[in-house]
């Protein structure tokens, strides 16, 4: 249990990378990029976690209570929204690629027709 969340972060990154390489469809590729990104979210939150601590919000718990790290949560929070933006741009490029070449398969997109 001591290193399981870090192992999950590595698993997500590796699974996402494998999905990018083995993908047969550009839209599925965008999904795999997002899976790889979520590995970093898990890693950040796992670093900030403290045993038997509560969320860093003191509206209902006394201020002396131990809380987890708020900085990594702030980083992850904005990271998620930016991740969606990246995926939206990837999907727009996939739609454009299909318009110009007629296929969504990354393997068939390699040749540049002059």
């Amino acid at each position: 249990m001591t290193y399981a969340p870090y192992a999950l972060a590595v698993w997500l990154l590796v699974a996402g990378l494998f999905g990018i390489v083995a993908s047969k469809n550009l839209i599925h590729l965008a999904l795999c990029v997002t899976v790889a990104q979520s590995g970093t979210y898990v890693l950040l939150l796992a670093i900030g976690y403290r045993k038997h601590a509560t969320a860093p919000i003191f509206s209902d718990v006394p201020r002396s209570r131990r809380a987890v790290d708020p900085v990594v949560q702030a980083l992850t929070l904005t990271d998620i929204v930016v991740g969606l933006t990246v995926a939206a741009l990837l999907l727009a490029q996939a739609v454009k690629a299909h318009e110009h070449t007629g296929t969504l398969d990354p393997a068939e997109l390699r040749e540049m027709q002059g």
Partner: protein
Amino acid sequence: MTRSARIILCAAGLAGLVALLAWGVAGLEPFGHYPGPYGTVLNSVEPHERHAANVVSAVVFDYRGVDTLGEELILFGAVMGLAFLLRENREENTRGVRDRVPSEALRAVGLVAVPVVVLLALDLVAHGYLTPGGGFQGGVAAAAGLLLVYLAGDWRAMRHAGPLPVVDAAEAAGASGFLIVGFATLIASGAFLENLLPLGTFGKLTSGGTIPVANWCAGLEVSAAFVLIFLEFLEEIMAEREAK
């Protein structure tokens, strides 16, 4: 290179990457033993310094406000890039497309659900620095509420509820509002995004100084940006419909 050759090569490379990452991760503290001083110091200092109950919101909009400014500008630029990519060959005017949802039951559910979702989103943004929530979460939820107008109603209603010039102006207002707060505090005290407004009482809506202002600017910008993203993607579909 065939696909199977690519996969085998990738597997070999990923094995090396896993070994490297495992060695790196083994050097971290065990899960649950948080070592660093940064989080502990912020948790103990922030309620006294900023009077905001949600420390994460205080970190996002005050202590690390420049990161959030950068993230907002990323969102702004990405929406511009998306519009540039998708509007390139789209001459068809989608003004004539109605795309009405035929089921009356769905329209009735939408009629009830849309105000509830929008109010919930506004509540998330407003209480963002007191309870879990904030500008980003509430902004995406508000954009989802506007999307629900299309999903449970028709396309023309969504175009009327969120006309493009208004949404563009809202996004620009949100992004520039954040910048204006930063520059105003720079002029007033010499530090960018310094918290200069009165701090108020802990736990009330008037706490936090400049945090509520930054919170609302971020909420406005994020909701407008996501509405623009949805509108761009949906216009593509409507253009196909018109061309048929």
